[in-house]
Protein backbone atom coordinates (compact mmCIF):
# COMPACT_ATOMS: atom_id res chain seq x y z
CA UNK A 1 0.00 0.00 0.00
CA UNK A 2 1.19 3.48 -0.73
CA UNK A 3 -1.08 6.35 0.15
CA UNK A 4 -2.08 9.15 -2.17
CA UNK A 5 -1.63 12.48 -0.40
CA UNK A 6 -4.40 14.94 -1.28
CA UNK A 7 -4.26 18.54 -0.08
CA UNK A 8 -7.48 20.54 0.03
CA UNK A 9 -6.78 24.25 -0.36
CA UNK A 10 -8.21 27.58 -1.53
CA UNK A 11 -7.21 31.18 -2.01
CA UNK A 12 -10.05 32.74 -0.07
CA UNK A 13 -11.04 31.58 3.41
CA UNK A 14 -14.43 30.19 4.35
CA UNK A 15 -15.16 28.56 1.00
CA UNK A 16 -15.49 25.02 2.37
CA UNK A 17 -12.04 23.39 2.65
CA UNK A 18 -12.65 21.91 6.08
CA UNK A 19 -16.14 20.76 5.14
CA UNK A 20 -14.73 19.16 1.98
CA UNK A 21 -11.83 17.48 3.81
CA UNK A 22 -14.13 15.98 6.47
CA UNK A 23 -16.69 14.77 3.96
CA UNK A 24 -14.31 13.39 1.36
CA UNK A 25 -12.22 11.62 4.04
CA UNK A 26 -15.35 10.09 5.55
CA UNK A 27 -16.69 9.06 2.15
CA UNK A 28 -13.40 7.38 1.21
CA UNK A 29 -13.36 5.52 4.54
CA UNK A 30 -16.99 4.48 3.99
CA UNK A 31 -15.81 2.96 0.68
CA UNK A 32 -13.49 0.76 2.73
CA UNK A 33 -10.31 2.80 2.24
CA UNK A 34 -7.82 3.42 5.01
CA UNK A 35 -7.79 7.17 5.49
CA UNK A 36 -6.08 9.74 7.68
CA UNK A 37 -7.17 13.38 7.69
CA UNK A 38 -4.64 15.97 8.86
CA UNK A 39 -5.68 19.44 10.02
CA UNK A 40 -2.84 21.69 8.88
CA UNK A 41 -4.65 24.91 9.76
CA UNK A 42 -2.47 25.58 12.80
CA UNK A 43 -4.07 28.01 15.26
CA UNK A 44 -7.49 27.74 13.60
CA UNK A 45 -8.32 24.12 14.37
CA UNK A 46 -11.69 23.10 12.92
CA UNK A 47 -11.57 19.70 11.29
CA UNK A 48 -12.01 18.06 14.71
CA UNK A 49 -15.39 19.73 15.32
CA UNK A 50 -16.66 19.11 11.81
CA UNK A 51 -15.82 15.41 12.28
CA UNK A 52 -17.23 15.41 15.83
CA UNK A 53 -13.93 14.39 17.45
CA UNK A 54 -13.11 17.50 19.49
CA UNK A 55 -13.49 15.75 22.84
CA UNK A 56 -10.94 13.08 22.05
CA UNK A 57 -7.91 15.28 21.40
CA UNK A 58 -4.86 14.76 23.53
CA UNK A 59 -1.94 15.42 21.20
CA UNK A 60 -1.72 17.32 17.93
CA UNK A 61 0.28 17.71 14.73
CA UNK A 62 2.87 20.03 16.27
CA UNK A 63 3.38 17.61 19.20
CA UNK A 64 4.26 14.89 16.68
CA UNK A 65 6.65 17.10 14.74
CA UNK A 66 8.34 18.31 17.92
CA UNK A 67 8.62 14.79 19.30
CA UNK A 68 6.36 15.40 22.32
CA UNK A 69 4.41 12.27 21.40
CA UNK A 70 4.58 9.43 18.94
CA UNK A 71 2.65 9.66 15.68
CA UNK A 72 0.13 6.97 16.72
CA UNK A 73 -0.68 8.85 19.92
CA UNK A 74 -1.86 11.90 17.97
CA UNK A 75 -4.06 9.86 15.61
CA UNK A 76 -7.68 9.99 16.77
CA UNK A 77 -9.88 7.14 15.67
CA UNK A 78 -13.13 8.22 14.04
CA UNK A 79 -16.47 7.66 15.80
CA UNK A 80 -18.28 6.26 12.80
CA UNK A 81 -15.77 4.47 10.60
CA UNK A 82 -13.12 1.97 11.67
CA UNK A 83 -10.47 2.91 9.11
CA UNK A 84 -10.56 6.69 9.52
CA UNK A 85 -8.18 8.76 11.66
CA UNK A 86 -7.72 12.45 12.39
CA UNK A 87 -4.52 14.27 13.30
CA UNK A 88 -5.71 17.57 14.78
CA UNK A 89 -3.98 20.92 14.43
CA UNK A 90 -2.37 22.68 17.38
CA UNK A 91 -4.65 25.43 18.60
CA UNK A 92 -2.28 27.56 20.67
CA UNK A 93 0.53 27.72 18.10
CA UNK A 94 0.94 29.29 14.69
CA UNK A 95 2.00 28.17 11.24
CA UNK A 96 5.68 28.83 11.92
CA UNK A 97 5.68 25.76 14.20
CA UNK A 98 5.83 23.64 11.03
CA UNK A 99 7.98 23.47 7.91
CA UNK A 100 7.25 21.90 4.50
CA UNK A 101 9.94 19.33 5.33
CA UNK A 102 8.08 18.31 8.51
CA UNK A 103 4.93 17.65 6.51
CA UNK A 104 6.79 15.56 3.93
CA UNK A 105 8.48 13.52 6.65
CA UNK A 106 5.24 13.00 8.57
CA UNK A 107 3.25 11.81 5.55
CA UNK A 108 6.09 9.55 4.47
CA UNK A 109 5.85 7.78 7.82
CA UNK A 110 2.19 7.02 7.11
CA UNK A 111 2.19 6.28 3.40
CA UNK A 112 2.68 2.55 3.81
CA UNK A 113 -0.25 2.13 6.20
CA UNK A 114 -2.95 4.12 4.41
CA UNK A 115 -4.73 4.47 1.08
CA UNK A 116 -5.40 8.20 1.35
CA UNK A 117 -3.95 11.02 3.42
CA UNK A 118 -6.02 14.21 3.22
CA UNK A 119 -4.62 17.53 4.37
CA UNK A 120 -6.89 20.44 5.28
CA UNK A 121 -4.92 23.54 4.33
CA UNK A 122 -5.24 27.06 5.68
CA UNK A 123 -6.40 29.67 3.15
CA UNK A 124 -4.00 32.01 1.47
CA UNK A 125 -0.58 31.89 -0.11
CA UNK A 126 1.75 31.95 2.85
CA UNK A 127 3.72 29.53 5.01
CA UNK A 128 0.70 27.48 6.10
CA UNK A 129 -0.29 26.86 2.49
CA UNK A 130 3.27 25.91 1.58
CA UNK A 131 3.40 23.42 4.45
CA UNK A 132 0.11 21.87 3.39
CA UNK A 133 0.94 21.39 -0.27
CA UNK A 134 4.56 20.26 0.19
CA UNK A 135 3.74 16.52 0.49
CA UNK A 136 0.78 16.54 -1.94
CA UNK A 137 0.40 14.16 -4.85
CA UNK A 138 -2.84 15.86 -5.79
CA UNK A 139 -4.34 19.20 -4.86
CA UNK A 140 -8.03 19.98 -4.66
CA UNK A 141 -8.78 23.67 -5.02
CA UNK A 142 -12.06 24.73 -3.47
CA UNK A 143 -13.91 27.84 -4.58
CA UNK A 144 -17.41 29.23 -4.41
CA UNK A 145 -18.93 30.74 -7.57
CA UNK A 146 -18.13 34.31 -6.51
CA UNK A 147 -15.81 36.82 -8.16
CA UNK A 148 -13.50 37.24 -5.17
CA UNK A 149 -13.19 33.51 -4.43
CA UNK A 150 -12.54 32.62 -8.07
CA UNK A 151 -9.97 35.38 -8.38
CA UNK A 152 -8.11 34.05 -5.33
CA UNK A 153 -8.38 30.50 -6.66
CA UNK A 154 -6.66 31.66 -9.85
CA UNK A 155 -3.77 32.96 -7.81
CA UNK A 156 -3.39 29.63 -6.00
CA UNK A 157 -3.57 27.71 -9.26
CA UNK A 158 -0.84 29.94 -10.65
CA UNK A 159 1.40 29.20 -7.65
CA UNK A 160 0.75 25.47 -7.80
CA UNK A 161 1.40 25.43 -11.52
CA UNK A 162 4.68 27.25 -11.00
CA UNK A 163 5.77 24.38 -8.75
CA UNK A 164 5.00 22.15 -11.67
CA UNK A 165 4.75 18.83 -9.87
CA UNK A 166 1.12 18.62 -8.83
CA UNK A 167 -2.06 17.56 -10.47
CA UNK A 168 -4.77 19.94 -9.37
CA UNK A 169 -8.52 19.73 -9.67
CA UNK A 170 -11.33 22.13 -8.90
CA UNK A 171 -14.24 21.79 -6.47
CA UNK A 172 -16.99 24.36 -6.92
CA UNK A 173 -18.83 24.58 -3.60
CA UNK A 174 -22.01 26.29 -2.44
CA UNK A 175 -23.68 26.47 -5.83
CA UNK A 176 -27.18 27.90 -5.51
CA UNK A 177 -29.45 26.46 -8.11
CA UNK A 178 -32.07 29.20 -7.68
CA UNK A 179 -29.51 31.98 -8.27
CA UNK A 180 -27.88 30.26 -11.24
CA UNK A 181 -31.29 29.65 -12.75
CA UNK A 182 -32.24 33.33 -12.65
CA UNK A 183 -28.83 34.42 -13.90
CA UNK A 184 -27.48 35.83 -10.68
CA UNK A 185 -24.63 33.44 -9.96
CA UNK A 186 -21.63 32.31 -11.98
CA UNK A 187 -22.34 28.82 -13.25
CA UNK A 188 -19.89 25.95 -12.81
CA UNK A 189 -19.13 26.21 -16.55
CA UNK A 190 -18.25 29.89 -16.13
CA UNK A 191 -15.86 29.11 -13.27
CA UNK A 192 -14.20 26.23 -15.13
CA UNK A 193 -13.96 28.36 -18.25
CA UNK A 194 -12.25 31.20 -16.41
CA UNK A 195 -9.87 29.06 -14.32
CA UNK A 196 -9.13 26.49 -17.03
CA UNK A 197 -8.45 23.52 -14.76
CA UNK A 198 -10.22 20.21 -14.54
CA UNK A 199 -13.35 19.88 -12.46
CA UNK A 200 -13.67 17.11 -9.87
CA UNK A 201 -16.82 18.17 -8.03
CA UNK A 202 -19.80 20.50 -7.84
CA UNK A 203 -21.40 20.82 -4.42
CA UNK A 204 -24.72 22.59 -3.81
CA UNK A 205 -25.22 25.12 -1.07
CA UNK A 206 -27.14 22.89 1.27
CA UNK A 207 -28.58 23.30 4.76
CA UNK A 208 -27.69 19.68 5.51
CA UNK A 209 -24.06 20.87 5.76
CA UNK A 210 -24.98 23.27 8.55
CA UNK A 211 -27.02 20.62 10.36
CA UNK A 212 -24.34 17.95 10.03
CA UNK A 213 -21.69 20.41 11.19
CA UNK A 214 -23.86 21.19 14.23
CA UNK A 215 -24.00 17.48 14.96
CA UNK A 216 -20.38 16.68 14.18
CA UNK A 217 -21.40 14.00 11.73
CA UNK A 218 -20.34 14.62 8.10
CA UNK A 219 -23.16 14.95 5.56
CA UNK A 220 -21.85 12.01 3.51
CA UNK A 221 -23.18 9.75 6.27
CA UNK A 222 -26.70 11.04 5.69
CA UNK A 223 -28.69 9.48 2.90
CA UNK A 224 -30.91 12.39 1.96
CA UNK A 225 -28.18 15.04 1.78
CA UNK A 226 -27.58 16.43 -1.70
CA UNK A 227 -24.24 17.95 -0.67
CA UNK A 228 -23.36 14.61 0.93
CA UNK A 229 -24.03 12.91 -2.40
CA UNK A 230 -21.83 15.47 -4.17
CA UNK A 231 -18.95 14.75 -1.75
CA UNK A 232 -19.42 10.99 -2.15
CA UNK A 233 -19.16 11.53 -5.91
CA UNK A 234 -15.88 13.39 -5.45
CA UNK A 235 -14.51 10.53 -3.33
CA UNK A 236 -15.52 8.04 -6.01
CA UNK A 237 -13.81 10.12 -8.70
CA UNK A 238 -10.65 10.26 -6.58
CA UNK A 239 -10.58 6.46 -6.61
CA UNK A 240 -10.74 6.52 -10.39
CA UNK A 241 -14.43 5.93 -10.95
CA UNK A 242 -16.32 7.89 -13.58
CA UNK A 243 -19.35 9.52 -12.00
CA UNK A 244 -21.57 11.97 -13.91
CA UNK A 245 -21.85 15.47 -12.45
CA UNK A 246 -24.97 16.47 -10.61
CA UNK A 247 -27.11 18.92 -12.54
CA UNK A 248 -27.10 22.10 -10.51
CA UNK A 249 -27.32 24.73 -13.19
CA UNK A 250 -31.02 24.76 -13.66
CA UNK A 251 -30.75 23.35 -17.16
CA UNK A 252 -32.77 20.27 -16.42
CA UNK A 253 -31.86 17.29 -18.49
CA UNK A 254 -34.39 16.12 -21.02
CA UNK A 255 -35.20 13.06 -18.93
CA UNK A 256 -35.78 15.14 -15.82
CA UNK A 257 -38.07 17.52 -17.68
CA UNK A 258 -39.94 14.58 -19.08
CA UNK A 259 -40.39 12.99 -15.69
CA UNK A 260 -41.56 16.31 -14.23
CA UNK A 261 -44.07 16.64 -17.04
CA UNK A 262 -45.54 13.24 -16.31
CA UNK A 263 -45.05 13.56 -12.56
CA UNK A 264 -43.08 10.33 -12.46
Amino acid at each position, binding site marked *: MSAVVITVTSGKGGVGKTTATANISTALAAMGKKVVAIDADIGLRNLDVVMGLENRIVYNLVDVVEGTCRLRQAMIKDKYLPELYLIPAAQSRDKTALTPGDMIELTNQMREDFDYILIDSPAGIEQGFKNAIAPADRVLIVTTPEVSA*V*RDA*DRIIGLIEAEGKYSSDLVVNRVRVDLVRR*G*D*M*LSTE*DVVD*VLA*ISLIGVVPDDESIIISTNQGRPAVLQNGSLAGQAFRDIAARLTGQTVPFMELDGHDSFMKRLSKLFKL
Partner: protein
Amino acid sequence: MSGFFSWLPGQKKTNSRDVAKDRLQLVLVQDRVNLSAQQIGEMKDELIEVISRYVEIDRDGIDITLTRSGRQSRLTADIPILGARH
Protein backbone atom coordinates in the same frame (compact mmCIF):
# COMPACT_ATOMS: atom_id res chain seq x y z
CA MET B 1 -29.72 56.05 -25.44
CA SER B 2 -29.58 52.44 -24.36
CA GLY B 3 -31.40 53.44 -21.19
CA PHE B 4 -34.23 54.87 -23.22
CA PHE B 5 -34.66 51.75 -25.32
CA SER B 6 -34.00 49.21 -22.64
CA TRP B 7 -37.66 48.76 -21.82
CA LEU B 8 -38.35 47.55 -25.36
CA PRO B 9 -39.26 43.88 -25.69
CA GLY B 10 -36.41 41.75 -26.98
CA GLN B 11 -33.80 43.97 -25.35
CA LYS B 12 -31.45 41.55 -23.60
CA LYS B 13 -31.16 42.32 -19.93
CA THR B 14 -27.63 41.73 -18.66
CA ASN B 15 -27.85 39.75 -15.46
CA SER B 16 -25.31 39.86 -12.66
CA ARG B 17 -23.84 36.52 -13.75
CA ASP B 18 -22.65 38.00 -17.06
CA VAL B 19 -21.34 41.10 -15.34
CA ALA B 20 -19.47 38.90 -12.84
CA LYS B 21 -17.88 36.83 -15.58
CA ASP B 22 -16.75 39.89 -17.56
CA ARG B 23 -15.26 41.56 -14.51
CA LEU B 24 -13.55 38.34 -13.50
CA GLN B 25 -11.97 37.85 -16.95
CA LEU B 26 -10.63 41.39 -16.85
CA VAL B 27 -9.23 41.29 -13.36
CA LEU B 28 -7.60 37.90 -13.94
CA VAL B 29 -5.79 39.13 -17.03
CA GLN B 30 -4.44 42.03 -14.99
CA ASP B 31 -3.51 39.75 -12.08
CA ARG B 32 -1.70 37.30 -14.30
CA VAL B 33 0.51 39.89 -16.00
CA ASN B 34 0.75 41.84 -12.75
CA LEU B 35 -0.12 45.15 -14.42
CA SER B 36 -2.85 47.62 -13.51
CA ALA B 37 -5.46 48.74 -16.01
CA GLN B 38 -3.55 52.03 -16.20
CA GLN B 39 -0.22 50.33 -16.93
CA ILE B 40 -1.84 48.24 -19.63
CA GLY B 41 -3.18 51.45 -21.16
CA GLU B 42 0.30 52.97 -21.11
CA MET B 43 1.77 49.86 -22.71
CA LYS B 44 -0.76 50.13 -25.53
CA ASP B 45 -0.01 53.80 -26.06
CA GLU B 46 3.72 53.15 -26.25
CA LEU B 47 3.17 50.30 -28.65
CA ILE B 48 1.15 52.53 -30.96
CA GLU B 49 3.76 55.24 -30.62
CA VAL B 50 6.59 52.91 -31.71
CA ILE B 51 4.70 51.50 -34.68
CA SER B 52 3.59 54.89 -35.91
CA ARG B 53 7.24 55.92 -36.07
CA TYR B 54 7.68 53.44 -38.92
CA VAL B 55 4.34 53.39 -40.72
CA GLU B 56 1.24 55.55 -41.06
CA ILE B 57 -1.52 53.91 -39.03
CA ASP B 58 -5.25 54.36 -38.73
CA ARG B 59 -5.68 55.34 -35.10
CA ASP B 60 -9.43 54.84 -35.12
CA GLY B 61 -9.17 51.26 -36.29
CA ILE B 62 -6.72 50.07 -33.63
CA ASP B 63 -7.69 47.09 -31.53
CA ILE B 64 -5.20 45.93 -28.89
CA THR B 65 -6.46 43.45 -26.34
CA LEU B 66 -5.05 41.37 -23.56
CA THR B 67 -6.91 38.06 -23.39
CA ARG B 68 -6.43 34.59 -22.06
CA SER B 69 -7.04 31.22 -23.56
CA GLY B 70 -6.72 28.37 -21.14
CA ARG B 71 -4.11 29.39 -18.63
CA GLN B 72 -2.16 31.36 -21.24
CA SER B 73 -2.34 35.16 -21.49
CA ARG B 74 -2.08 36.74 -24.91
CA LEU B 75 -1.62 40.26 -26.26
CA THR B 76 -3.31 40.71 -29.62
CA ALA B 77 -2.81 43.83 -31.68
CA ASP B 78 -4.80 44.67 -34.79
CA ILE B 79 -3.39 47.90 -36.19
CA PRO B 80 -4.54 48.99 -39.65
CA ILE B 81 -1.71 50.49 -41.71
CA LEU B 82 -2.64 53.36 -44.01
CA GLY B 83 0.65 53.49 -45.85
CA ALA B 84 4.32 54.34 -45.65
CA ARG B 85 5.62 57.12 -43.50
CA HIS B 86 6.81 60.07 -45.61
